[in-house]
């Protein structure tokens, strides 16, 4: 019987621990169990056979750590270890052999240094070896990071047709080590089309019950559970597990009674545990979990549910009509976008739209980077917005979680290109009620398009609960009599198709005064008509007041708690910029006051003059006080931040590049991710009017060389924190010189000293950010 068929019909029993058994057979602490496939095959085979004799249907190959990172230095390749491991598992006579794959051993960006592409390639290597050796299915287990799993699942689906099972490991707080919740895992992995998903390791069966219950509610595929033999406890410096085989069997079989389809054991379990469990589940029927449809999206760590209330999708990361954002996108400066993401979250957005559509850029590359940067600073789920299907496909692929795609329309070409992407990656999709003939005037015609979108989507395998229909707003100033048609269309769609709806609201007021009033009244009307999610500006007070008020009226905000809490913080401190000079504001590090003071000064003073006469003298003074020990670090940085907000005011008033005193490239070198020092230096240099191209952290040598040569920057700043990455700094400088780069190079970072500066070949030692500014003055002063 094919394992897919078996999974649909009965409770499938996996085996128990391998590591526990190997340690009992003499494997030393820290030894790689996988090497035993080649050095002690008889021991591994014996354990597999014991599990088969205990009644397990599936035996898991001894290949948990057989990836190239974990095997590095062992003298063995993944191919050798996996071929031997799968062969031993098959030799045991088990009905099915699972190719076992654990975490790669390093964390993905932005937390760590591993890229999505590298993770994909490593997993693919393991999977190809396992499939060639004859595995019947692939099991990813003990996973923590959803994005890492996603790379693995895609690798599996793209290089073989074996079924894929995934279990993640949750701690006692119900989250994985990187914060993934069972809801996020179930949503994302169900969407990716795995054959079973679940939980293993970390805890015993008793502690796992809440996690399993959540999985049973949220998963759209069979649920799998492999608990430890109880909660691990430390005893005399050793880990012990303390429940009996009977307890284990009773508690674990209870999962099947609730609807779990696949059981097994993890750390501390032995054939005796599995044998007891086999006896318990024999005669038990497969139970289907009770479920209701859920419409939700997620990031790697946070879920946004669209059932049972209204949601806010932040619209601000979209360059249409935004000069500053366009500039930043062209410069590939993502700090601005990160800032927009954070402020929208602070103002109450539930989901963020990300659009990077500009004609003159590589949209796919920029959109992918923007999604990565936004995910690095906020846990909100994202709506990936583009008219370029390739950009959508690439961004959705690398996205951590289950995103929304914005958008598909009723046009045949759109349906054919976008729906397969949504189906493959399990994304939710916004369907616009327009087609080749444009936006129909009547609600009925828009309903017809919505109906077509839903029908086509289901054909491609996108379920109804993953569709959001946008009935499209027309401008009141141009087509006034059609505005209410949109609301009628919402009602028709909700009643007739049972899907959720979304609407970009702001268009309604285009060309009219007092737009926030029109927008918020229309928004309220939309909510009244049954609108589920609004794409709006969360920084608009009127809009958010409307949202908060509606959430009281529709009983979403229980006891009006959020509404009341918000009302009580509304009185804001009054800024009295008049009585104090700009210097005072800067030196005391008051950002809002500095911005206000700058704005006022700008009425009478030229921007460059403000920089030279106000910003720099104040910063110099703060710097001196810092050096003399009158101020300490947080106070210095706060002053720098005040100037930063003053600069924002100036930039809006100046032509592009108007304040640049020269260009400096900065980077934290390859292999190093400690970049806080570099970021402080960058802010201070910007404060002094330099244009800083920040390449980020863990920057490959070639990328530094490329940026240095392309920009022609006369000064380059490199940082490294570890003795191990100082070498990488030297490699970078050597490569720069080899490429003919004549720029001066300053180096900084905790481990550096004058001696190291010589070793790496830098021109200057930037002991701290202040010294960096002095070096820049020297380099750029000498030029003029």
């Amino acid at each position, binding site marked *: 019987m094919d394992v897919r068929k078996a999974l649909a019909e009965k409770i499938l029993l996996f085996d128990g621990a391998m590591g526990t058994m190997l340690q009992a057979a003499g494997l030393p*602490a820290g030894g790689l169990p996988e090497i035993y496939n080649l050095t002690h095959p008889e021991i591994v085979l014996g354990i597999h056979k014991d599990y088969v004799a205990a009644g397990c249907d599936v035996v898991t190959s001894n290949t948990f750590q057989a990836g190239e990172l974990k095997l590095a230095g062992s003298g063995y390749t993944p191919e050798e270890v996996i071929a031997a491991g799968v062969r031993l598992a098959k030799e045991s006579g088990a009905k099915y052999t699972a190719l076992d794959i654990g975490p790669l051993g390093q*964390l993905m960006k932005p937390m760590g240094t591993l890229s999505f592409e590298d993770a994909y390639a490593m997993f693919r290597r393991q999977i190809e070896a396992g499939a060639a050796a004859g595995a019947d299915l692939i099991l990813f287990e003990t996973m*923590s990071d959803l994005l890492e799993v996603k790379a693995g699942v895609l690798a599996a689906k793209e290089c073989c047709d074996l079924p894929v099972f995934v279990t993640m490991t949750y701690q006692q707080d119900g989250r994985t080590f990187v914060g993934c919740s069972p809801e996020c895992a179930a949503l994302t992995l169900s969407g990716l089309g795995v054959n079973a998903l679940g939980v293993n390791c970390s805890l015993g069966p008793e502690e796992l019950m809440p996690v399993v219950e959540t999985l049973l509610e949220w998963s759209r595929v069979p649920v799998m559970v492999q608990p430890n033999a109880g909660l691990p406890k430390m005893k005399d410096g050793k880990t012990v597990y303390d429940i009996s085989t009977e307890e284990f069997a009773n508690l674990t079989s209870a999962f099947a009674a609730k609807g779990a389809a696949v059981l097994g054991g993890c750390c501390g379990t032995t054939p005796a545990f599995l044998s007891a469990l086999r006896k318990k589940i024999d005669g038990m029927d497969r139970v289907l979990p009770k479920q209701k449809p859920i419409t939700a999206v997620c990031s790697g760590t946070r879920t946004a549910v669209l059932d049972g209330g209204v949601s806010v999708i932040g619209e601000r990361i979209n360059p249409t009509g935004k000069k500053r954002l366009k500039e930043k996108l062209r410069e590939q400066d993502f700090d601005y976008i990160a800032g927009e993401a*954070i402020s929208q979250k602070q103002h109450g957005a539930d989901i963020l739209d990300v659009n990077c559509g500009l004609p003159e850029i590589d949209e796919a590359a920029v959109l992918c980077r923007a999604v990565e940067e936004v995910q690095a600073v906020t846990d909100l789920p994202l709506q990936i917005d583009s008219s370029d299907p390739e950009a959508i496909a690439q961004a959705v692929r690398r996205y951590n979680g289950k995103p929304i795609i914005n958008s598909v329309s009723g046009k045949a070409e759109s349906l054919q290109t976008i729906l397969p992407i949504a189906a493959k990656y399990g994304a939710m999709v916004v369907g616009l009620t327009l087609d080749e003939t444009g936006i129909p005037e009547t609600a009925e015609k828009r309903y017809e398009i919505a109906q077509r979108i839903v029908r086509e989507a289901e054909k491609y395998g996108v379920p109804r609960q993953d569709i959001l229909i946008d009935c499209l707003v027309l401008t009141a100033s141009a087509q006034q009599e059609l505005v209410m048609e949109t609301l009628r269309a919402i009602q028709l769609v909700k009643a007739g198709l049972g899907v959720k709806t979304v609407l970009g609201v702001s268009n309604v007021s285009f060309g009219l005064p007092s737009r926030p009033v029109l927008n918020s009244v229309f928004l309220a009307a939309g909510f009244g008509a049954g609108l589920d999610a609004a794409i709006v500006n969360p920084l608009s007070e009127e809009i958010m007041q409307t949202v908060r008020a509606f959430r009281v009226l529709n009983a979403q905000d229980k006891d009006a708690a959020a509404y009341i809490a918000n009302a009580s913080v509304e009185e804001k401190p009054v800024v009295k910029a008049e009585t104090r000079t700009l210097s005072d504001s800067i030196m005391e590090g008051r950002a809002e006051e500095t911005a206000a003071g700058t704005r006022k000064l700008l009425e009478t003073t030229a921007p460059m003059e403000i920089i030279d006469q106000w910003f720099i003298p104040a910063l110099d003074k703060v710097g001196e006080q810092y050096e003399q020990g009158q101020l*300490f670090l947080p106070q210095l940085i706060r002053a720098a931040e005040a100037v930063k907000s003053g600069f924002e005011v100036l930039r809006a008033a100046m032509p592009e590049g108007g304040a640049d005193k020269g260009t400096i490239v900065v980077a934290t070198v390859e292999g190093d991710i400690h970049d*806080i020092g570099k*970021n402080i230096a960058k802010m201070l240099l910007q404060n002094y009017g330099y244009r800083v191209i920040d390449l980020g952290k863990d920057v490959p040598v070639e990328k530094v060389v490329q940026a240095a040569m392309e920009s022609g920057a006369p000064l380059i700043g490199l940082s490294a924190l570890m003795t*191990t990455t100082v070498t990488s700094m030297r490699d970078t400088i050597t490569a720069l010189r080899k490429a003919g780069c004549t720029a001066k190079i300053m180096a900084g970072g905790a481990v550096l000293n004058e001696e190291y500066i010589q070793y790496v070949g830098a021109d200057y030692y930037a002991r701290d950010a202040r010294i960096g500014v002095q070096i820049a003055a020297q380099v750029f002063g000498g030029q003029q």
Partner: protein
Amino acid sequence: MDITLDRQEILRYLGYRGQMIDNRTQKELDGCMQELLETAKPRYCYRIFEVRQDLEKEEIVLPQCDLRLLGRDIYEHLRGSRKCAVMAATLGIEADNLIRISEAESMTRAVILDACAADMIEKVCDMAEAEIGALAAAEGCGLTSRYSPGYGDFPLSVQESISRILDTGRQIGLTVTENQLMIPRKSVTALIGFSLRPGLKKKGSRCAVCSMRGRCKFRKEGTYCGR
């Protein structure tokens, strides 16, 4: 875990030398301490191994986990010990995330949080050490001080072996990159000897063996970093 942060230590990490601390900085510091304590997910793990001396090469060997410790300094540190604990501690990826997101919002807060985290990870290590101390005491031993890869001539490259021996990825979510960087960043690995004569653990005694020796800003000012 019940952890109390040490305000003076945090100020010291921030380069505080008796300056006037304005109210706002005070409040921000309080807020950061609180937020880190609420956000971080401190975890630690350790194992105890027998210590053997390779008298010929003057190196320490831990036969039970097949580990040879390179360097003169760790030899001096553990030569009087019969056993040693290999430990790892972390504040979890949540602390990294908090600091990274703060950088995009307010660098001031990020810098303060970073200092708070430096203190907090020491406190987590102290808790692990207290547990290990109880095990040592039961065998009639005291503890040597904690000794970490990168101190003195004890190479950072042992980081990877420690991670593997303790299975830190699975136990506490700690990984090590090819460059021996620990992620989560706010993490510590260390060895502690079980010694019949642990000697005096006086303040500052670790400076002599610190990898920052010779370029430490605290030492230049006649103090020490507190570790």
